[in-house]
């Protein structure tokens, strides 16, 4: 699937435009030819598991990797043939790649000096202030903490006022708390300087908190592109549905596909899916994967099933696991249509009867249901033991 953008509303001069850009190494295709437009001033994330081609895409924009096909445009300028040192683009590298023999000041001044700018002092000091490292100017990189080095790397790139700032997993080496802090920091800096950021990450939470637009990549292709909320609510494939958060899937058969709603049969029950949120063909008898996010589901003890309002999608089951994590409780429910249904329940009024073994009814607003083509793996994009484990589980099915 070659994803075309849907965000080219502004014909601005600083857009990054990739046209049919692809990269192959021998017989291995790292990036399938793809078209992508990153509007000027936006915070764009390339999200995907390792080896999905996101870093290669980024490096092609930087000029560090030569594309096998296609072109890279920055605004109106075709930069495909330009070497990296002639592109108005700067990169924050994964391991920062700070120059170990230069102090922080000289690291930050490096780009300015190479462009023949003599009086760098004021600019460098201002930039160090922006990343709150004014005190550290005369230290060597190895004397700084990981978070500080990261900020030097950002400052070193930003001081050149590039048209685009490329960030290659810049927070990967930091611990969780620092990463959260740096996410906010980067977002603040981006808003302050207004430069286009293209951010590569495998962390879906990072992509969603920081970016305006996220492109989810898988096996060298863009699976889906959109705002974080859009990707989360309307995933187009099981890969996207699983990679961004958690999804429950039910294999269902279309009963009636006419009208605004699709009515489905699953395990003797009846489910309703809004036609607008269905990505599969809805002819009667067709199979569809019905998806619903764990936090959209309510859990009611079977004894109180009569109290559930009409018109909600319902599934019966038995609780097999319950994990209390403070703000919510994560239940795993075994039901005839899906063996491990995940349900997140906010801990507002906890029902003491909801313990493993209890018979329950799961119910949710039909509007929160989405439908996907049944012809794909349910486990695509499951994080954690993804990859190999996924394949094995599929074989075992």
């Amino acid at each position, binding site marked *: 699937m070659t994803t075309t953008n849907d965000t080219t509303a502004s014909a601005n001069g600083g857009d990054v435009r990739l046209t049919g850009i692809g990269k192959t190494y021998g017989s291995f295709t790292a990036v399938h030819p793809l078209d992508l437009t990153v509007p000027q001033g936006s915070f764009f994330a390339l999200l995907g598991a390792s080896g999905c081609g996101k870093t290669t895409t980024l490096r092609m924009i*930087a*000029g*560090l990797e030569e594309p096998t096909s296609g072109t890279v445009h920055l605004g109106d300028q075709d930069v495909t043939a330009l*070497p*990296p*040192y*002639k592109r108005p*683009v*700067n*990169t924050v*590298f994964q*391991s920062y*790649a*700070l*120059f*170990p*023999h230069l102090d922080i000041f000289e690291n930050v001044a*490096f*780009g300015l000096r*190479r*462009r023949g700018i003599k009086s760098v002092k004021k600019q460098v000091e201002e930039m160090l202030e922006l990343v709150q490292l004014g005190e550290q100017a005369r230290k*060597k990189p190895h004397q700084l903490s990981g978070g500080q080095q990261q900020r030097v790397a950002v400052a*070193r*790139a930003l001081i*050149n006022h590039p048209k685009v700032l490329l960030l290659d997993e810049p927070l990967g080496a930091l611990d969780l708390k620092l990463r959260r802090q740096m996410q906010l920091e980067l977002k603040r800096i981006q808003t302050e300087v207004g430069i286009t950021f293209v951010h590569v990450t495998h962390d879906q939470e990072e992509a969603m908190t920081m970016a305006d637009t996220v492109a989810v990549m898988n096996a060298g292709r863009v699976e889906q592109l959109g705002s974080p909320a859009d990707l989360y609510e309307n995933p187009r494939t099981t890969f996207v549905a699983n990679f961004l958060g958690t999804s429950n899937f039910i294999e269902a058969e279309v009963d009636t596909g006419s009208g605004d709603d699709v009515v489905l049969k699953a395990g003797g029950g009846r489910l309703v899916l809004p036609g607008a949120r269905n990505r599969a063909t809805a002819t009667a008898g067709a199979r569809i994967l019905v998806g619903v996010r764990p936090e959209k589901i309510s859990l009611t003890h079977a004894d109180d099933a009569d109290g559930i309002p009409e018109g909600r999608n319902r599934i019966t089951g038995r609780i097999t696991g319950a994990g209390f994590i403070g703000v919510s409780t994560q239940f795993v429910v075994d039901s005839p249509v899906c063996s491990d249904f995940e349900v997140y329940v906010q801990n507002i009024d906890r029902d003491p009867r909801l313990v493993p073994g209890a018979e329950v009814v799961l119910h949710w607003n039909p509007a929160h249901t989405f439908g996907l083509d049944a012809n794909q793996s349910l486990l695509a994009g499951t994080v954690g033991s993804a990859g190999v484990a996924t394949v094995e589980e599929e074989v075992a099915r």
Partner: protein
Amino acid sequence: MTTVTEAPPLAPAPPEPEPPRRRGRWTPYLLLLPGLLWLLVFFALPVVYQASTSVQTGSLEEGYQVTWHVATYWEALSEYWPQFVRSVLYAASATVLCLLLGYPLAYLIAFRAGRWRNLIMILVIAPFFTSFLIRTLAWKTILADGGPVVGALDALHVLDVTAWLGWTAGDRVLATPLAVVCGLTYNFLPFMILPLYTSLERIDPRLHEAANDLYARPSTTFRKVTFPLSMPGVVSGTLLTFIPATGDYVNADLLGSTDTRMVGNVIQSQFLRVLDYPTAAALSFILMAAILIMVTLYIRKSGTEDLV
């Protein structure tokens, strides 16, 4: 006897102290012991012995006595200072040549060789499988009068230039300064390449990318990033070449003439032919001191302490 001239104090540095460990407090010292004993017997004691020899007077027949005759140093220096100067000049020329030849090769092995890397490394080390003497003698054949090399250089009028510079004499290369410097360069080249390669290979290639990304063209990247980061290799390579080359006497002996005698040759003949032990010992100490001073100044100047 010749151990002194061949082992200036810097080369056999004592083994590095072991990393600190709480348990087994004595283990590090025990591990140090063999090396320390070796140094004591074959380095420290000979140095003391030579020091005492250098202040003795007497003759071979009557025997030598310690008379604290320090004037030997002054006499040795005033008589043999041309050989000292020559040694330093030859060694410095050979070191510069080694650097010019070795750096591109080390760079190639570190960054461009790919799967050929190991093969090239073996080729660099391969000469060590042959004896130092034989390799030097081979150069005698290579540079032989009327041989193909000399013939080619003559035909290209290179010899006219080198003769004008005083590096060669007439249509000969053998028995001239050029031959000695060539021999030194050849024999010590691996000692330059290996440390250079080690420090180049340690440079993260992403630093090149970062420099490229920050508007540095490849030549600027080399000047501002690669070369400064390879300084530890440059320093240790030049030391490993310069120090032994200064004290070398084999190349001057086999490829040179009486006009190209280096201080090593003088010490050798004082010890083994003239049998003037005090002068030979004094010369050894002067050489040691001179090398120490030069090396210290060099390391100070290159300022690579925090890079190593």
